């Protein structure tokens, strides 16, 4: 911490370093309402009935397991499914009564109604900051914000919903379960078997893609957009950031942590060299080519039945929620990575800047404790090269370097937003307390209490002041 004090005179380094880190040409679209601020989604109102079904143990889920030829262990399947869903709902990781859910349910109805599935499938939005969607055999479909943030229009969302709905209609989750149960113990351990299971699942994905095209067309959407969804999943869009700029920023601080290509690609390679992921990438290629040929001759549909503006609004919210949810999961590196991407579109957004500052604070704190390795939540899961570069850079930094970076950035945000953003209003006095002691921090804590009389940190701050 002494080094931190010495470096505070040069605090601007930390700020410049972060702000210019991702100075590249790529950016998302902008939604003007979020230019200055964002408020994370809070759950309000009554818990909807279909959500309660997911929570209460005595609310039995209904699964048609009449096809005994598929599976003998149907009771076990129902129980496992039922309790997995309950655990997921009660964890607080599913939204309800919010803008995202309302919108996704609206699009889902447009897709499912003409296909006769609107009564069977219940659609929810999940908090996971990864691009994924899942359906269960009781008709619960969860689309994660990580996927919503990646999509570009309604047709792509419609494709995802239709794809998952096909898994439900074709009883794929059920078949997967039966397939894995049929294997004996020795088979389960072999690599060949792992590959064959991935292939089995890929056959189902191809079938779901094929049927989804028909469903999307029937609903009046543009089927060719499905190809782009697969393209995004191949992480092509994620790597549009010109990552070679990261090591060549030319700034004094960044040069110290410069990662050469072979260094940061190591983090990506950890992911790419795993057999299941290699297989998954191969399978995505097959799906991409199949979908391209299947949709080539198809006529055009509507890109958006509602409006592109509305979709952009939803996509922006999903992007902000991704940042928030990665933070909640203590996945601070990912939260920083996603923040930096969003900052390209919303450089003056106070919430985003302050969230980035908060992430830096926690990384510094864990580094000080000597537990920084435990924060590597995405270790061996990194697909994006720019994320790998960011990861690599942090891996080279010492605790003092991280504190220095965090301090500079937090102070700058405090000067700009200290009286508007509660988090930074609290974080800066906390940082001063760590650096200079309580006496120095007292006036800042008092300022926090004046600015945020009903704030979430009030009890903590009052206790600090009374100690």
């Amino acid at each position, binding site marked *: 911490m002494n080094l931190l004090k010495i470096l505070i005179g040069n605090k601007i380094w930390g700020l410049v370093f972060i702000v210019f880190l991702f100075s590249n040409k790529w950016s998302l679209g902008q939604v003007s309402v979020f230019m200055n601020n964002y408020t994370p989604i809070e*759950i309000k109102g009554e818990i*909807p009935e279909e959500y309660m079904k997911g929570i209460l*143990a005595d609310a039995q889920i209904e699964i048609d397991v009449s096809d005994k030829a598929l599976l003998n262990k149907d009771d076990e399947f129902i129980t496992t499914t039922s309790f997995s869903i309950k655990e997921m709902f009660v*964890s607080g990781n599913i939204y309800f009564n919010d803008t995202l859910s309302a919108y996704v349910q609206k699009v889902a109805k447009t897709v499912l109604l003409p296909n006769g599935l609107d009564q069977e499938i219940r659609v929810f939005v999940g908090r996971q900051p990864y691009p994924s969607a899942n359906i269960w055999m009781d008709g619960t479909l969860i689309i994660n914000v990580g996927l919503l943030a990646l999509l570009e229009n309604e047709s792509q969302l419609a494709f995802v919903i239709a794809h998952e709905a096909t898994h439900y209609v074709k009883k794929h989750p059920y078949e997967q379960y039966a397939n894995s149960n049929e294997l004996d113990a020795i088979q389960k351990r072999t690599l060949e078997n792992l590959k064959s299971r991935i292939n089995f699942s890929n056959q189902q994905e191809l079938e779901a893609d094929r049927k989804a095209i028909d469903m999307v067309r029937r609903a009046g959407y543009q089927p060719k957009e499905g190809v782009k969804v697969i393209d995004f999943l191949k992480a092509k869009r994620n790597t549009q950031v010109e990552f070679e700029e990261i090591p060549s920023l030319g700034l004094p601080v960044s040069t110290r942590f410069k990662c050469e290509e072979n260094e940061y690609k190591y983090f990506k390679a950890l992911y790419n060299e795993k057999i299941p992921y290699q297989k998954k990438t191969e399978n995505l290629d097959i799906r991409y080519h199949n979908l391209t040929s299947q949709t080539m001759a198809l006529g055009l549909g509507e890109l958006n039945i509602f409006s592109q503006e509305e979709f952009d609004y939803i996509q922006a919210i999903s992007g902000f929620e991704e940042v928030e949810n990665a933070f909640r999961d203590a996945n601070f590196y990912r939260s920083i990575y996603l923040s930096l991407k969003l900052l390209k579109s919303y450089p003056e957004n106070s919430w985003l800047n302050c969230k980035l500052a908060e992430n830096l604070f926690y990384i510094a704190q864990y580094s000080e404790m000597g*537990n920084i390795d435990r924060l590597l939540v995405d270790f061996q899961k990194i697909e994006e090269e720019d994320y790998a570069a960011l990861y690599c850079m942090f891996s080279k930094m010492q605790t003092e370097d991280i504190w220095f970076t965090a301090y500079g950035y937090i102070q700058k945000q405090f000067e700009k937003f200290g009286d508007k953003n509660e988090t930074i209003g609290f974080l800066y006095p906390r940082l001063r307390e760590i650096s200079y002691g309580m006496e120095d921090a007292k006036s800042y804590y008092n300022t926090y209490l004046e600015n945020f009389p009903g704030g979430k*940190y*009030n009890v*903590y701050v009052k206790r600090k002041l009374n100690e």
Partner: protein
Amino acid sequence: MNKKRYFILLLLASLFLSSCRGILRIDQTKMMGRKGNNVKRIVCLNPDYEVLISTKDQTQKSYQKSASKESTFNKMLDRNARKNGIQLQIIDNEDLNKHDASFFNDLAPLKQELLQVSYLQNFDNVRNNTSKFRLGKVIGKHEQGPLISPRFSYLADIYGTPFFSINGIATHKKPKKGKLLLLLTIPPVGIASFFFQDVDTYYYTIIADVRSAEIIYREVRQVNLRATEANLNSLLYDSFHIISK
């Protein structure tokens, strides 16, 4: 010594040895170790009961068995807390109604935070500690506990107490190993072993003080006993007794 007495003695010895195997690890801040620490009211966040069953190849959670035990476990928690003068407010998802949406803004994220912090930080990380070591029992007393986010401090006003806890039981039924060999080498013990399952029961408690934004108490117990009501009552009573001291 006739054969019957030999058999009974060996059986009792094996039962005694198996029942005495256990580990207790407690980490607590100095505030918790102090007399009259005022932990008189705790909000318990959705207690967990997990039944894990292992075969030769895999370990699986038995959801049905886990769910069936939960309400009994909640009652036992409440009863043993009261016996030690602690008021336990159990927030169980089974009791949620449609007006309890705030659960998902406040308590579900707090539970997630406590579990995360327990993984991410050790008591030892924060300040030096002095530990008392006894056979199979470790009690660490620390200046400060693992740090949680201070953003939950407002919950102290809402719930009228700064203490929030996670309590849980996990029982692990293990496959029977080497019993045939035991039967061949020490027949009485071998026979006895067929009547008793190889079960480990774990009980854990994490208590946080949201006002000071730290975990103040963490306890893990492992006993080589089945999770019968009598066994659990004794674990829970002892645990709440330590907390209330």
